[in-house]
């Protein structure tokens, strides 16, 4: 029978476990990608909230937009594609440009 573990030995053993414990990075990354992707889908599918300074949306157009999103979500296969921040920033800029196009069309059609 060996000698009882000293405090020093116990601390060493615990520290070596802490130092060697490596979480499975792949599993974490896939889970996070899936979580972030599901945010995209759930956020797209939910109704819009309005602030007081925003013009209310046309009810028919809003219904149609909702239908388009629903159809997209139905045919969407669940995939945990990695979400890269730089791509998100690019996409946000692309959306800004698209908003400008929409404003331009509205202006042209009002004239």
């Amino acid at each position, binding site marked *: 029978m060996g000698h009882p573990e000293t405090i020093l030995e116990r601390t060493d053993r615990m520290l070596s476990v*802490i130092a060697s414990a490596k979480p499975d990075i792949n599993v974490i990354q896939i889970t996070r990608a899936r979580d972030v992707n599901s945010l995209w889908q759930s*956020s797209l599918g939910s109704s819009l909230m309005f602030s007081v300074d925003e013009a209310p949306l046309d009810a028919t157009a809003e219904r149609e937009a909702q239908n*388009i999103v629903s159809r997209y979500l139905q045919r969407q296969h669940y995939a945990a594609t990695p979400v890269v921040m730089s791509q998100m920033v690019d996409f946000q800029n692309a959306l800004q440009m698209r908003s400008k196009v929409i404003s331009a069309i509205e202006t042209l*059609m009002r004239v």
Partner: protein
Amino acid sequence: MNENVPIASYTELLQRRLDAVRTLTRSLRESQNALLTRDVEESGQFTEQQIDLCNEIEFLDRDLRSADEILAWAKALKPDNREIIQIRKHTKVAEEQLMQNCLVHKGLVRRAKRSVTIMMNAKTNDAVYHVPSSFEAMQSAEEA
């Protein structure tokens, strides 16, 4: 003076504008998928096409206004020209369809903007390293 020439040009301007309005409506519809799948490259290509079409419509509107003034002054534009009336009728319908598609697209863009903001916030929070408390570290070591 041959008055058919200005009318033919005017009709051509109207027809080109009608074509541009219809193409823009189609482009908005076709770009929906790129928007929903977050395809930046394809979405950018559609945006460029839509900007070009908006510019074309704007130039054609300017030309048509000038032509209106000239034709009114020259009294060359016959109001009962059937082709012109027909194109104007089609244009009215096409413009209504464009506006409806534009409103739908606006709703989609609003949703996409909101969603991407939420995703970026979540992604930013993900990047913060979670430091386990000393209690958590000790506990996991004890369990090992």
